[in-house]
């Protein structure tokens, strides 16, 4: 009993340090908050930018819902109607697509810089863990949203991902081996990707994931505001600026410029133009599958290794990376910022190379076999 009480007390102490609610007042969280100025100060704007893109997603996504029909017979036509006939429909849809990619880009950059600056260090573990959860939720947004237009690439790419979930079963022992198939059927809702899948993905994309995201985001932002900005570098310059109003004003200017950039992109460059048109034809279960089916660019880091390496290697890699990400504050507790910076550069190099040159690397490897 005594031991249990002690454990509970230890947990309470842990939480009190991570979420110091006594600091939850306007004075500490806004008026007296300061932002360090150093060579990595630019990284403090990345979290805000991710939030900006999330807000754009929320607004444009809500507007799209006025016309989108989540049935296999009407989904494609409704998206086509939005794009070609609804006033500003093309702009809204393209803004939604561009900002989803920008959100993932900023989130990854935010995460890598946070890692390099050791901003996950005690007492910011909860900020880090909620950040990892937000990253996972954002990928889930990307995956579920990809199916909704119900075109060739959407349906076929979803099938590929669901098949890879099922493949995990062969590496699991005993009755556990049937779990991935059960999970796949749970997500899919029927024997193949169809109406049940579309309904489930819509519910996830439009209701469940946003609600989860709001909850985790709230905790993340609260934790950020309670602890303030992390030091970020080993040798602080000693220079600081006030969070309110100086940093917020700068943040708004960054938001303004980035919003302009994304708006111009959305107005002038259809996101679909980067892929061949047969991929965006209506899905036809009886028709031939076009060439070039692949997931969105932000899944290349897992998709190309999956195409080139044995499945079990990817599976182990994914588990290690997932657990490693969650436990980062404890694994790298005593690691210097210099080493963290080097790891961050390596991760960045991998992500850039596999995303930009993934198809070429795949061709070379495939040719060698």
């Amino acid at each position, binding site marked *: 009993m005594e031991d249990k009480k002690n454990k509970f007390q230890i947990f309470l102490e842990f939480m009190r340090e991570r979420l110091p609610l006594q600091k939850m007042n306007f004075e500490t969280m806004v008026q007296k908050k300061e932002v360090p100025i150093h060579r990595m100060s630019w990284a403090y704007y990345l979290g805000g930018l991710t939030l900006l893109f999330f807000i754009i997603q929320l607004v444009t996504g809500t507007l799209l819902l006025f016309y989108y029909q989540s049935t296999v017979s009407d989904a494609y036509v409704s998206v086509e109607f939005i794009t070609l006939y609804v006033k500003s429909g093309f702009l809204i849809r393209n803004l939604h697509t561009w900002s989803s990619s920008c959100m993932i880009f900023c989130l990854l950059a935010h995460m890598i810089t946070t890692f390099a600056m050791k901003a996950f260090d005690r007492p910011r573990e909860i900020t880090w863990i909620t950040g990892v959860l937000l990253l996972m939720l954002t990928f889930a947004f990307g995956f579920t949203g990809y199916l909704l237009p119900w075109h060739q690439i959407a349906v076929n790419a979803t099938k590929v991902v669901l098949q890879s979930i099922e493949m995990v079963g062969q590496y699991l022992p005993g009755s556990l081996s049937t779990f991935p198939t059960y999970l796949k059927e749970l997500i899919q809702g029927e024997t193949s990707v169809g109406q049940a899948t579309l309904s489930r993905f819509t519910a996830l994309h439009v209701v469940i994931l946003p609600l989860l995201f709001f909850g985790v985001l709230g905790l993340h932002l609260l934790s950020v505001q309670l602890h303030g900005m992390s030091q970020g570098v080993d040798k602080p310059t000693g220079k600081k600026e006030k969070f309110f*109003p100086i940093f917020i004003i700068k943040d708004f200017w960054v938001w*303004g410029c980035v919003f*302009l950039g994304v708006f*111009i992109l959305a107005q*002038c460059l*259809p996101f*679909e133009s980067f892929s061949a*048109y047969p991929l965006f*034809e209506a899905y036809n279960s009886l028709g031939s599958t076009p060439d070039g089916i692949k997931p969105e660019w932000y899944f290349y880091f897992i998709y190309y290794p999956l195409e080139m390496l044995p499945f079990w290697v990817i599976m182990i890699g994914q588990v290690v990376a997932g657990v490693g990400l969650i436990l980062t504050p404890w694994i790298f507790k005593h690691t210097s910022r210099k080493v963290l910076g080097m790891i961050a550069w390596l991760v960045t190099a991998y992500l850039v190379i596999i995303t930009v040159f993934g198809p070429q690397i795949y061709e070379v490897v495939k040719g060698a076999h």
Partner: protein
Amino acid sequence: MRAVVISALLLFVYQVQADAYPEFQRYSKEVSGRPIDCAICHKNSDGPEGLKHGQIGSLNSEELKALGAARRAFKPGANVKNPILNEFGNSILNQLGKEKILMLRQHPELLSAALDPTSDLDNDGITDAEEFEDGTHPLNPLDGKPLKLFKNNLKKNRFDIFMLILATGFGVYGLSNALLWLSSKMEKKE
């Protein structure tokens, strides 16, 4: 009687080789490096043969008549509407005539030069001939070489973009000043 005529006509149609000219599709695919299907000229992405929408087997008697007329359009300017072709396919047929198209089968690289250099069916600012070379769809305004589309749309929307730059600039400037004012008020209170 009508059913017999239609059936005989259908049988005749099946026996005649469907008018698919994959040389053009192959050329566009090769030169652009993009995967292209029959939908670049045909109504159905799986080509003209079959029973699906836009394929010969699905045509009614009126459409079969139109198909026959299109097959006899050997000279340019026949103004026919082949029911198995899309607007771009029909545009090629009416601009060049079947005779020229059959000649170009041996030299598909000459097709874009033979087409009207001003024709832009999807109004995306990229001509149909260019789209054929680029392997993008001449009837889809969202499909085109990204840089070309960006330049054309930037030109088309420059007024909107200029107004947005002004609105964003003034908006953020106003907001910044409002925050500065609020901050000074708070400091005074302290």
